[in-house]
Protein backbone atom coordinates (compact mmCIF):
# COMPACT_ATOMS: atom_id res chain seq x y z
CA UNK A 1 0.00 0.00 0.00
CA UNK A 2 1.23 3.47 -0.91
CA UNK A 3 1.07 6.50 1.39
CA UNK A 4 -1.81 8.12 -0.51
CA UNK A 5 -3.83 4.89 -0.49
CA UNK A 6 -3.24 4.51 3.22
CA UNK A 7 -4.39 8.10 3.87
CA UNK A 8 -7.44 7.61 1.65
CA UNK A 9 -8.30 4.36 3.40
CA UNK A 10 -8.19 6.02 6.83
CA UNK A 11 -10.21 9.02 5.61
CA UNK A 12 -12.89 6.70 4.25
CA UNK A 13 -13.03 4.64 7.45
CA UNK A 14 -13.13 7.71 9.71
CA UNK A 15 -16.00 9.39 7.88
CA UNK A 16 -18.25 11.23 10.29
CA UNK A 17 -15.51 12.04 12.76
CA UNK A 18 -14.23 15.57 13.39
CA UNK A 19 -12.35 16.64 10.26
CA UNK A 20 -9.55 18.28 12.25
CA UNK A 21 -9.04 15.11 14.26
CA UNK A 22 -9.04 12.96 11.13
CA UNK A 23 -6.53 15.25 9.42
CA UNK A 24 -4.31 15.25 12.52
CA UNK A 25 -4.38 11.47 12.73
CA UNK A 26 -3.52 11.01 9.06
CA UNK A 27 -0.78 13.65 9.30
CA UNK A 28 0.68 11.76 12.27
CA UNK A 29 0.94 8.50 10.34
CA UNK A 30 2.16 10.13 7.14
CA UNK A 31 4.90 11.90 9.11
CA UNK A 32 6.05 8.59 10.59
CA UNK A 33 5.96 6.88 7.18
CA UNK A 34 8.07 9.72 5.79
CA UNK A 35 10.57 9.31 8.63
CA UNK A 36 10.90 5.61 7.84
CA UNK A 37 11.41 6.41 4.16
CA UNK A 38 14.10 8.96 5.09
CA UNK A 39 16.02 6.01 6.48
CA UNK A 40 15.91 4.33 3.09
CA UNK A 41 12.94 2.05 3.65
CA UNK A 42 10.75 1.68 0.51
CA UNK A 43 7.34 3.39 0.65
CA UNK A 44 5.25 0.23 0.84
CA UNK A 45 7.38 -1.24 3.58
CA UNK A 46 7.22 2.02 5.51
CA UNK A 47 3.42 2.00 5.29
CA UNK A 48 3.36 -1.65 6.39
CA UNK A 49 5.55 -0.74 9.38
CA UNK A 50 2.63 1.26 10.79
CA UNK A 51 0.74 -1.98 11.28
CA UNK A 52 -2.54 -3.35 9.95
CA UNK A 53 -4.53 -0.43 8.44
CA UNK A 54 -7.79 -2.04 9.48
CA UNK A 55 -6.61 -2.21 13.08
CA UNK A 56 -5.35 1.38 12.95
CA UNK A 57 -8.72 2.57 11.65
CA UNK A 58 -10.59 0.62 14.33
CA UNK A 59 -8.31 2.04 17.01
CA UNK A 60 -8.80 5.60 15.76
CA UNK A 61 -12.56 5.11 15.61
CA UNK A 62 -12.40 4.26 19.29
CA UNK A 63 -10.30 7.30 20.15
CA UNK A 64 -11.67 10.07 17.98
CA UNK A 65 -14.79 11.85 19.17
CA UNK A 66 -17.84 11.76 16.93
CA UNK A 67 -18.15 14.95 14.87
CA UNK A 68 -19.49 18.24 16.28
CA UNK A 69 -22.94 18.13 17.91
CA UNK A 70 -24.35 19.85 14.79
CA UNK A 71 -24.34 16.53 12.99
CA UNK A 72 -26.87 14.55 14.98
CA UNK A 73 -28.55 11.39 13.84
CA UNK A 74 -30.85 11.65 10.79
CA UNK A 75 -33.79 10.54 12.95
CA UNK A 76 -33.22 13.43 15.37
CA UNK A 77 -32.98 15.92 12.51
CA UNK A 78 -36.26 14.67 11.04
CA UNK A 79 -38.00 14.79 14.42
CA UNK A 80 -36.82 18.35 14.88
CA UNK A 81 -38.06 19.51 11.48
CA UNK A 82 -41.42 17.81 12.09
CA UNK A 83 -41.62 19.57 15.41
CA UNK A 84 -40.90 22.87 13.69
CA UNK A 85 -43.54 22.21 11.06
CA UNK A 86 -46.23 21.55 13.65
CA UNK A 87 -45.02 24.58 15.58
CA UNK A 88 -45.36 26.89 12.58
CA UNK A 89 -48.67 25.21 11.72
CA UNK A 90 -49.88 26.12 15.22
CA UNK A 91 -48.71 29.68 14.72
CA UNK A 92 -50.53 30.03 11.40
CA UNK A 93 -53.69 28.56 12.92
CA UNK A 94 -53.39 30.95 15.89
CA UNK A 95 -52.90 33.94 13.63
CA UNK A 96 -55.98 33.00 11.55
CA UNK A 97 -58.04 32.81 14.77
CA UNK A 98 -56.72 36.21 15.81
CA UNK A 99 -57.59 37.65 12.38
CA UNK A 100 -61.14 36.37 12.73
CA UNK A 101 -61.42 37.78 16.25
CA UNK A 102 -59.95 41.12 15.05
CA UNK A 103 -62.40 41.29 12.14
CA UNK A 104 -65.33 40.48 14.43
CA UNK A 105 -64.24 43.21 16.84
CA UNK A 106 -63.95 45.73 13.99
CA UNK A 107 -67.51 44.92 12.91
CA UNK A 108 -68.64 45.33 16.54
CA UNK A 109 -66.87 48.70 16.67
CA UNK A 110 -68.65 49.85 13.52
CA UNK A 111 -71.96 48.71 15.02
CA UNK A 112 -71.43 50.45 18.34
CA UNK A 113 -70.26 53.65 16.66
CA UNK A 114 -73.38 53.68 14.45
CA UNK A 115 -75.41 52.97 17.59
CA UNK A 116 -73.69 55.83 19.42
CA UNK A 117 -74.43 58.24 16.55
CA UNK A 118 -78.06 57.14 16.41
CA UNK A 119 -78.50 57.40 20.17
CA UNK A 120 -76.87 60.86 20.08
CA UNK A 121 -79.18 62.18 17.34
CA UNK A 122 -82.25 60.67 19.02
CA UNK A 123 -81.03 62.14 22.33
CA UNK A 124 -80.69 65.65 20.85
CA UNK A 125 -84.19 65.35 19.43
CA UNK A 126 -85.60 64.15 22.75
CA UNK A 127 -83.73 66.96 24.55
CA UNK A 128 -85.37 69.52 22.33
CA UNK A 129 -88.92 68.07 22.54
CA UNK A 130 -89.08 66.23 25.90
CA UNK A 131 -86.82 68.26 28.16
CA UNK A 132 -83.23 67.83 29.35
CA UNK A 133 -83.73 64.83 31.71
CA UNK A 134 -84.32 62.30 28.91
CA UNK A 135 -81.70 64.12 26.81
CA UNK A 136 -79.06 63.68 29.57
CA UNK A 137 -79.86 59.97 29.82
CA UNK A 138 -79.39 59.63 26.06
CA UNK A 139 -76.13 61.62 26.24
CA UNK A 140 -74.91 59.27 28.95
CA UNK A 141 -75.80 56.30 26.74
CA UNK A 142 -73.93 57.95 23.84
CA UNK A 143 -70.80 58.41 25.99
CA UNK A 144 -71.05 54.76 27.08
CA UNK A 145 -71.34 53.56 23.47
CA UNK A 146 -68.41 55.80 22.42
CA UNK A 147 -66.28 54.29 25.19
CA UNK A 148 -67.30 50.79 24.13
CA UNK A 149 -66.44 51.62 20.50
CA UNK A 150 -62.95 52.87 21.47
CA UNK A 151 -62.38 49.78 23.62
CA UNK A 152 -63.46 47.42 20.86
CA UNK A 153 -61.29 49.25 18.30
CA UNK A 154 -58.25 48.93 20.61
CA UNK A 155 -58.97 45.23 21.08
CA UNK A 156 -59.41 44.70 17.34
CA UNK A 157 -56.14 46.42 16.43
CA UNK A 158 -54.29 44.40 19.10
CA UNK A 159 -55.69 41.17 17.74
CA UNK A 160 -54.71 42.13 14.20
CA UNK A 161 -51.19 43.12 15.23
CA UNK A 162 -50.83 39.89 17.21
CA UNK A 163 -51.94 37.91 14.19
CA UNK A 164 -49.39 39.72 11.99
CA UNK A 165 -46.57 39.01 14.49
CA UNK A 166 -47.45 35.33 14.73
CA UNK A 167 -47.50 34.99 10.96
CA UNK A 168 -44.14 36.77 10.65
CA UNK A 169 -42.55 34.53 13.28
CA UNK A 170 -43.77 31.38 11.59
CA UNK A 171 -42.44 32.71 8.26
CA UNK A 172 -39.00 33.28 9.85
CA UNK A 173 -38.77 29.64 10.95
Amino acid at each position, binding site marked *: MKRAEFAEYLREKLKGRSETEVNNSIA*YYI*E*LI*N*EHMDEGIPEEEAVAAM*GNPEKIAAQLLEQLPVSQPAVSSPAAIQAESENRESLSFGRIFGSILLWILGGFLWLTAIGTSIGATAVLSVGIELWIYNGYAVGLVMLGLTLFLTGLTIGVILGASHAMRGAGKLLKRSAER
Partner: protein
Amino acid sequence: MDSKLKNGMLDACVLSCLLKADSYGYSIVRELSGKVEISESTLYPILRRLEASGALTVYSTEYNGRLRKYYSITDTGRERIRTFLEEWKAAMDIYNYIRKEAEKL
Protein backbone atom coordinates in the same frame (compact mmCIF):
# COMPACT_ATOMS: atom_id res chain seq x y z
CA MET B 1 -1.12 -5.87 33.43
CA ASP B 2 -4.00 -3.61 34.46
CA SER B 3 -4.62 -1.22 31.55
CA LYS B 4 -4.89 1.87 33.76
CA LEU B 5 -1.56 1.04 35.35
CA LYS B 6 -0.04 0.43 31.93
CA ASN B 7 -1.36 3.72 30.53
CA GLY B 8 0.05 5.61 33.49
CA MET B 9 3.45 4.02 32.92
CA LEU B 10 3.43 4.71 29.19
CA ASP B 11 2.42 8.33 29.78
CA ALA B 12 5.30 8.77 32.20
CA CYS B 13 7.70 7.07 29.78
CA VAL B 14 6.81 9.40 26.92
CA LEU B 15 6.99 12.44 29.18
CA SER B 16 10.41 11.49 30.51
CA CYS B 17 11.55 11.16 26.89
CA LEU B 18 10.87 14.87 26.54
CA LEU B 19 12.65 15.97 29.72
CA LYS B 20 16.00 16.51 28.02
CA ALA B 21 14.70 18.06 24.82
CA ASP B 22 11.63 18.40 22.63
CA SER B 23 11.16 15.43 20.35
CA TYR B 24 9.05 14.12 17.44
CA GLY B 25 7.00 10.98 16.90
CA TYR B 26 9.53 8.77 15.17
CA SER B 27 12.31 9.69 17.60
CA ILE B 28 10.09 8.93 20.62
CA VAL B 29 9.15 5.50 19.24
CA ARG B 30 12.80 4.70 18.51
CA GLU B 31 13.96 5.80 21.94
CA LEU B 32 11.30 3.85 23.82
CA SER B 33 11.21 0.68 21.73
CA GLY B 34 13.24 -1.95 23.47
CA LYS B 35 12.49 -0.40 26.87
CA VAL B 36 8.70 -0.61 26.78
CA GLU B 37 6.21 -2.18 24.46
CA ILE B 38 5.32 0.71 22.18
CA SER B 39 4.62 1.23 18.50
CA GLU B 40 3.59 4.05 16.16
CA SER B 41 -0.07 3.29 16.65
CA THR B 42 0.12 2.92 20.42
CA LEU B 43 2.07 6.17 20.76
CA TYR B 44 -0.63 8.24 19.04
CA PRO B 45 -3.34 7.90 21.73
CA ILE B 46 -0.72 8.58 24.40
CA LEU B 47 0.33 11.82 22.71
CA ARG B 48 -3.30 12.85 22.25
CA ARG B 49 -4.06 12.10 25.89
CA LEU B 50 -1.03 14.02 27.12
CA GLU B 51 -1.79 17.01 24.93
CA ALA B 52 -5.45 17.06 26.03
CA SER B 53 -4.44 17.03 29.69
CA GLY B 54 -1.93 19.84 29.14
CA ALA B 55 1.12 17.68 29.95
CA LEU B 56 2.70 18.54 26.61
CA THR B 57 2.36 21.06 23.81
CA VAL B 58 2.81 20.52 20.07
CA TYR B 59 4.44 22.68 17.42
CA SER B 60 5.42 22.07 13.82
CA THR B 61 8.81 22.73 12.25
CA GLU B 62 9.83 22.34 8.66
CA TYR B 63 12.20 19.47 8.09
CA ASN B 64 13.31 18.06 4.76
CA GLY B 65 10.65 20.06 2.92
CA ARG B 66 7.80 18.77 5.08
CA LEU B 67 6.34 19.48 8.49
CA ARG B 68 7.50 17.60 11.52
CA LYS B 69 5.53 17.80 14.76
CA TYR B 70 7.57 18.38 17.89
CA TYR B 71 6.30 17.63 21.37
CA SER B 72 7.36 19.73 24.32
CA ILE B 73 6.80 18.89 28.00
CA THR B 74 5.00 21.47 30.16
CA ASP B 75 5.14 22.14 33.91
CA THR B 76 1.99 20.04 34.24
CA GLY B 77 3.88 17.22 32.52
CA ARG B 78 6.86 17.55 34.87
CA GLU B 79 4.45 17.47 37.80
CA ARG B 80 2.98 14.26 36.36
CA ILE B 81 6.43 12.63 36.42
CA ARG B 82 6.97 13.73 40.02
CA THR B 83 3.61 12.29 41.04
CA PHE B 84 4.37 9.06 39.16
CA LEU B 85 7.68 8.64 40.99
CA GLU B 86 6.09 9.32 44.39
CA GLU B 87 3.26 6.87 43.80
CA TRP B 88 5.63 4.18 42.64
CA LYS B 89 7.91 4.80 45.60
CA ALA B 90 4.97 4.00 47.89
CA ALA B 91 4.08 0.99 45.74
CA MET B 92 7.67 -0.24 45.88
CA ASP B 93 7.65 -0.07 49.69
CA ILE B 94 4.56 -2.25 49.73
CA TYR B 95 6.12 -4.59 47.18
CA ASN B 96 9.24 -4.97 49.29
CA TYR B 97 7.22 -5.70 52.40
CA ILE B 98 5.15 -8.35 50.63
CA ARG B 99 8.26 -9.97 49.16
CA LYS B 100 10.01 -10.08 52.54
CA GLU B 101 6.98 -11.70 54.15
CA ALA B 102 6.69 -14.21 51.31
CA GLU B 103 10.36 -15.11 51.56
CA LYS B 104 9.98 -15.96 55.25
CA LEU B 105 7.84 -18.98 54.38
